[in-house]
Structures are given as structure tokens and as C-alpha cells.
């Protein structure tokens, strides 16, 4: 039992990309990304190298444009393809990959999120010649073993049923579908059982062929190595990853239907004892020039323990264990949400209070002292986000993916400091939705449907129905 659920309060930190980095730099007030090298291979793969010698390990992060937005009608295909990358390659069986890695305590993870697929790995520096060739084959030469795929499909179908037992695990999938509608951003990364059940191994092979290519992908390697020899090694190994010739169809730039009215989606979970909910609307793109300022303002509203949402809903009224708010930016769009949960019988006062807090932000703005506090907080908490090689490797691939460079990090502190209360007012007006609010509630419909109707026309779905 903890004071707060850390994952909730850290939700904002995930998108608050910011950098550290060394004491002397911090003292001078300007945080800098540690020195790194960036180069591209003839096949188009972008490679980042950064030396970090605190522990004798190496962290790898790769990003590939192969996320759920490329699923088409096959919901869940990107995810299962990413998982299946490790089901055997040209020179390694699945069993061989696992025994090689487990024996040396190395880990490779492959997964797909909404926009991209990722590979992350961590291993001892001394084992780089064992692990790097495996990583290359996992990305470039997977064979998608049919027997292993059938086993995974069964596990995956069971997992899809099971995650609906936890409202917190699926709320975001309903939310995205409700806000983005039929746009590819409405696709969940998890997929639906009805769709996954129909997959065959050839679906994975086709998806792979179209979407996994070194061109458009990036690989970051951070840790205990010497850059020159690592560069030679990576160039040799990864140049053999062949470019795809199939055209990739990216629909993420298509317009998203504007939401013109407040609406409520109520997902009925018969055995629910509490209501788990999101309130919000459209948010921002990741490349928004006001990104840092928005994060500071959100810190006041719902980005830390003393935020107005947590203060009102938890500290003042004991309605919930936690309330927060966050932006979820993507390349071409984003959403904003207020997130909390409460006992079924206190659903109404909880929603009302959350709305009051949001209204207060618009009506009264942020006082000088609170703004200063939020700025101090955001600045004080970001160095630990970039302390490890794994975190830095993630930062580099994120820079590649969203098209920002180290100036975003290096100017972070100045950008925070530059936020005046006048500007904060503009930020609130421009980016924090207060009209046509969208609500997604998971709870016991028979007890909360009437309450939900207060906030807009209600659509009811059964949690056991397929998909989101």
C-alpha cells in the first residue's frame, strides 16, 4: 500500500520529455543532453550512440513505424507481429534465442504501441557480440514460426478477455476509440478477440513485409562501450537489414472528425463496485511549440500530489485515492483527460467536483505562487527521468520519432522559466478543454446511468462485448 499510485502521477512524466544531465551543467542552470553521435546506414537506418559508463551494461532502443495505426481492419495485428518477431529467425530458433539470452541475464522486448513498434534490450557489455546479432535478426530476419504463433494467439486471446477484468487496464482503449472515432488513432494496440481469432501467420508476414524497414526506423545504443568500435560493429551488422520495397500506407495524417457536443460513453461492468472514469477532449500534437508550458500548467491542474484535482477529490473530500490529468500527444493529434475513480455511490459528486476544478482553472487562472511552485517542481523532478542508459536510449529514439532535437531538452529549463502568468492564461484558454466535454465511465450501469445522463447523451456498451 502506498501513499499514491505512482503510475497515475507519473503519467504526465511519460510525455514530459526532458533532460538532465550533469552536475556542473545543472549548476550553471542549463541542462544538456550528454554527448552522442548520430549517423545513418546506406539502408536508411538512423543510429544513435551515447557512451555511459556507470555500470558495465548496454541498453538498446529501436523504433519502427509499425504500430497499430497500420492495422487496417485487422485490430491487434501490429501487437502480435511485434511479439512474434522473437519466434525464431533465419539463424536462431525461438528456443535458441531464449536460452542464449536467459543464460547471460540479457533481455529483449518487442512490442507495438499506437504509432510505432519498439525493441528494447539490456545486456552486459561483455555480451555485446552475442546479443547484437540476435537483435539484428529479430528485427531483420524473423521467420514467424507457425506453431509458436498458434500458441501465442491462444495466450493473446485469453489475455484480451482478462484485461477487461480490470477497468483501469482498458479505459484508455475505450477513450481513444470514443474520441478519435474511425480515424486510425482510434485503433487500440491490444486488438479485439474477434479480430485476433481470425489471424493466420501469413497476416503477420504481410504486415512485417510492409511495415518493418530500416528506412524510417532508428536504433539507439547507450552504455558502456567505446563509440568508434561500436560504430563499426553496428554498421557491419545492421547494414545487412534490407529495405522493404512494399509501400507503407500511413493514414495518421487524415483529418479527425471534430466533436461538436458533450457525450458520455458508459461501459457496463456488472460486478463493478466503483466507477473508473476519464473526462476531457482533444489535446495537442507532440510538436506543439507550447509543449513545455502546457506541461507546467497541467502540473497545477493534475500533474502532482498537490494538484488542484488531487487536492479537491482526495485530500479535501476523501472521494478517491487519486485524481490527475494528462495530455497524450501523438504525431498528428492528441487528447487531454482528467482521470479518477470512486465508489459507485459517490460517482456524481466526484464528476461534479472534477468539473468544478476544471472550471476554476478557466475562471480564475493560476496565481503567481502556484505557478512558481509548479515550475520548481517540473524542473526539480526531471533529472531522474534521464539517469540511466535505458532512459537515455528511449529519449534518443523519441527524439527521432517526434522530430525534436536536444535543443528541446537543453532549453527546457529556460522554457519553464519563461512561462509568465499572462502566458499561462493563454495556454489554459487555448489548450484545456472546458466545453463539449467527453466522459468515459466504466461502472455499474444500472446504478450510474441516470447520473451519466446529466453530462450529455449516453451510449451504453457492455464490457464483455468484443473490442472497445
Amino acid at each position, binding site marked *: 500500500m502506498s501513499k499514491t499510485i505512482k503510475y497515475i502521477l507519473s503519467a504526465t512524466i511519460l510525455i514530459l520529455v526532458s533532460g538532465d544531465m550533469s552536475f556542473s551543467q545543472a549548476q550553471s542552470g542549463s541542462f544538456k543532453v550528454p554527448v552522442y553521435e548520430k549517423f545513418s546506414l546506406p539502408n536508411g537506418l538512423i543510429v544513435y550512440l551515447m557512451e555511459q559508463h556507470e555500470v558495465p551494461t548496454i541498453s538498446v532502443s529501436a523504433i519502427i513505424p509499425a504500430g497499430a495505426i497500420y492495422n487496417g481492419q485487422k485490430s491487434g495485428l501490429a501487437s502480435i507481429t511485434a511479439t512474434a518477431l522473437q519466434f525464431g529467425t533465419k539463424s536462431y530458433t525461438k528456443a535458441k534465442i531464449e536460452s542464449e539470452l536467459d543464460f547471460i*541475464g540479457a533481455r529483449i522486448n518487442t512490442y507495438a504501441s499506437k504509432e510505432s513498434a519498439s525493441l528494447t534490450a539490456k545486456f552486459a557489455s561483455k555480451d555485446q557480440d552475442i546479443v547484437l546479432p540476435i537483435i539484428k535478426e529479430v528485427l531483420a530476419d524473423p521467420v514467424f514460426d507457425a506453431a509458436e504463433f498458434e*500458441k501465442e494467439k491462444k495466450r493473446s486471446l485469453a489475455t484480451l478477455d482478462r484485461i477487461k477484468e480490470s477497468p483501469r487496464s482498458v479505459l484508455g482503449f475505450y477513450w481513444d476509440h470514443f474520441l478519435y472515432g474511425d480515424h486510425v488513432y482510434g485503433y487500440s494496440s491490444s486488438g479485439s478477440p474477434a479480430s485476433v481469432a481470425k489471424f493466420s501467420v501469413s497476416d503477420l508476414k504481410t504486415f512485417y513485409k510492409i511495415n518493418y524497414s530500416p528506412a524510417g526506423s532508428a536504433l539507439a545504443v547507450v552504455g558502456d562501450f567505446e563509440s568508434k568500435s561500436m560504430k563499426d560493429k553496428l554498421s557491419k551488422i545492421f547494414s545487412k537489414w534490407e529495405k522493404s520495397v512494399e509501400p507503407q500506407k500511413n493514414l495518421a495524417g487524415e483529418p479527425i472528425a471534430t466533436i461538436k457536443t458533450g457525450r458520455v460513453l458508459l461501459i457496463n461492468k456488472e460486478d463493478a463496485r466503483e466507477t473508473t472514469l476519464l473526462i476531457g477532449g482533444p489535446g495537442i500534437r507532440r510538436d506543439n511549440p507550447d509543449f513545455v508550458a502546457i506541461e507546467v500548467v497541467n502540473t497545477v491542474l493534475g500533474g502532482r*500530489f498537490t494538484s488542484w484535482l488531487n487536492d479537491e477529490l482526495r485530500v479535501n473530500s476523501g472521494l478517491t*485515492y487519486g485524481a490527475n490529468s494528462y495530455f497524450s500527444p501523438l504525431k498528428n493529434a492528441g487528447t487531454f483527460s482528467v482521470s479518477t475513480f470512486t465508489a459507485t455511490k459517490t460517482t456524481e459528486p466526484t464528476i461534479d467536483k472534477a468539473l468544478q476544478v476544471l472550471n476554476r482553472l478557466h475562471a480564475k487562472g493560476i496565481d503567481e505562487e502556484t505557478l512558481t511552485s509548479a515550475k520548481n517542481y517540473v524542473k526539480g523532478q526531471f*533529472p531522474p527521468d534521464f539517469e540511466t542508459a535505458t532512459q537515455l536510449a528511449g529519449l534518443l529514439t523519441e527524439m527521432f520519432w517526434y522530430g525534436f532535437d536536444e535543443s528541446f531538452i537543453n532549453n527546457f529549463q529556460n522554457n519553464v522559466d519563461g512561462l509568465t502568468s499572462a502566458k499561462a492564461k493563454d495556454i489554459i484558454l487555448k489548450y484545456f478543454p472546458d466545453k463539449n466535454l467527453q466522459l468515459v465511465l466504466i461502472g455499474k450501469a444500472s446504478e450510474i446511468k441516470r447520473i451519466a445522463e446529466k453530462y450529455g447523451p449516453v451510449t451504453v456498451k457492455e464490457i464483455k462485448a468484443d473490442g472497445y
Partner: protein
Amino acid sequence: MKRLLCFLLTCLSSSLYAQMKAEDVKTFTLKNGMKFLVIEDNSIPNANMYLFYKVGSRNEHPGITGLSHFFEHMMFNGAKKFGPKMFDRTMEFNGGANNAYTTQNVTVYTNWFPVTAMETIFDLEADRISSLSIDPKMVESERGVVLSERSTGLENSPWNLLGDAVNATAFQEHPYHWTVIGYETDIKNWTKEDLEEYFRTYYAPNNAVVVISGNVKLDEVKRMAQKYLEPIPAQKQPNVVHLVEPPQIGERRILVQKEVATPYILIGYHTPDTKSKDFYALDILNSVLTSGNTSRLYSALVDKKQLATSVFSDFSESFDPNLFQIYGIAAKGVKESDLENAIYMEIEKIKKEGITSQELQKVKNQKLMEFYNKIETINGKSNNIGTYELFFGDYKKMFNAPAEYEKVSTEDVKKVVNEYFKKSNRTVGILKANVEE
């Protein structure tokens, strides 16, 4: 709550010793008995302070179950200098953040801050340790918060419900019988006096260990500790927990209903406390069973037989003898009894044939990587050094652990499996939708 897992290290290489040595941990003890462990690490301009209090749900009794955890919350609700809300407001204004956790054994307060805020952190901690004020209004609203915390845990994870039931069944006399969060009726019932009594008894400087890591200087830490914390008087040592769980003399089973797609199973075996000579062999067994896809249980149950969709195990630090737990979720259409029997089959195999030397070496290699993960951050350093100090009795044991793991042989692992993994010593919990059949 799940006790924090920190298995840590085995076979540390010489290069590791070069990176962090026992001598890098500086220690001093204030006149009031409060012990400090300090690690200077200037990799980032931040620092942390972890305060470990030797109080957890094992110190409670029926009527006040959950009070340790509730108290953890009340420590943020106002003291003499910094009134209600001011602890968090002051800390966050200065760029700091905090959290806290309570387990069966300990309550731990964690502060993370830019090093420039360290003096403020000392001031805040000293205020609440010396002069917490328990405001009845805050008690009432905090009851709601904790009831929500309890309910959201049960709502979102079947493991909470099943884990609670297995502990309550496996422990009939020892306080591990009840949950860390406590009974709902106790949460609604305790009084201001109960809280005050708890504070006096357990929140004494001599009942705490403080670990500070980051861009700090030992002398500065010492100066602030002396200024802010040394004036707080020591208290008499709290009573020891005298309850001992009698040996289990027959298998126990417990069935729990929840709307789930497939059954969940949890098997707990009574095992000794962390200071036991068998700790390292059991810890290695834990990895052999479920760490990675080549582990015994994953390979047999999830991969080859496809009886489970996931399987994992837990063997954590504990002051008193606790459970070695094995968790599994049945695959679709699989009877939970088939999954259960398949788990026993793997255990029986180890009882008869032991583990291979290859497996033993694999686990030792994995432990080394785990160790790197733990000491890579200043938070990892503080949490693990504090954990060793409390549970192993000396932070230096963290640095001796490699030798301890190195000593473990395949025979030792076989021996502990035979000793503890007996039918009569286990409690089996099943959670499923239909419990009427």
C-alpha cells in the same frame, strides 16, 4: 501491497566492486539512536532520502488492522510547524516529490528532490517525526481515501483478493494473517487515540534507519541531521512481535469467487525469514522456477503444455517466516486442477533430480544483471541499501551477497525444495467465476 522485490546480486564481478563498495556507504548514528547511511553520488543534481521505520502490519492486532498503512497516510496530514497540506506543498514548491509505502514489515517514506532543497526536507521530516498533529477532520477524510485505495485494488486485480485469502489461511496465529491495508470495519473504526498511541510507540528516531543518496556531501548531511533530527528524544523500544506461526500440519485450501475468464491459482509454502541460512538457496530456486522463458515453470506450463497463460513466483524479504508463493493463470478451457498438478510435477522433478549446474550458473548471471539495475539509480541505491540494513541486519551484507550466492550448490537447492515444498506445508488458493460447481 506486494512487498517490494529486491533480490539483488549474486556473483559480483571485480569490476562491480570497483563501481560501488561497502566503503562507499558512510554511516553515523545520532545520540537519539537514529542511524544514517549516506552514499555520495553526483551523477545527477538530485538526491533522495528514504526513511525506513520498523513498523508494519505485523505490529498490529485485530481492531487496529491496517493502522500502520493508515498512519503512513496521516504522516502527510500536518504537524506543528507545517500544518495540514503544508508538508506536500512545501516540498513540491521546492522542487521535491514524495511517496511512501507500507508492507507487512516496514513503513518507508521516500523523498526525491534537487539537492538544493535538502535542508527543507530535513525541516519537514523533523517536524512530522517530532510533533505530528492528528486532526480529527483529516482522519475522517483520510478514511475515505484509504477505503478507495482498498476498493480500487480489489476492483482491478484478482490477485489482491486471492492473495489476501491465502495469507489469511496460511497464517492462523501470526499477524501476517491480515492484510496490510486492513479490514474495512477496522478502517472505519479506529480512533484518534489509537493513532496517537501508534505514533508514540513506533515513530521514534531509534526505530528508524535513514538512507540518503545523491549529490550530497556527508558533512552537510551530518550537520543537518544533528540540527534537525538529533533533538528528537528516543523512546523505549517497542514490544517485539512474540507471535509465532505454529508449523502447518496439513494442506489447506481456499476458494474465492470473482467474475474472471479463467481460474487464478496461488500456492504458498511456509519458508523461513530472510536471516535464515536457506535464504540464498530459496532465492535461487525462485529464479529457476520463473525467471525468463527458459525457467522451469514458464517452459513447462506456458510454453510446452499450454496450461497457463502466465506464471510467476515471489520470495521476498521478511522479518518473520513467510510464504514462498507461486502464481498461475489457467489458459482457456484448462481445469485449474490440471494446472495445479503440473506445477507439483515440476517441483517433484527438482526434488528428485535437483537443478543442473547450467541452471545454477544462469541464475547467478541473471543476479548480476539484476544488481546492475538496482545500483544504476540513486533511488535503487537507497532502497536496496536500506532493505539490506533492515532485513539482513547489516547493509554490508549486500556486498557479501555475491559470496553467499556463490556458495550455493545444486545440492543445496535440492535440499530446500525437499524441506519446504511439502504438501502438508502448503496453502492452495483458487479464484474463479463459478464456485458452486
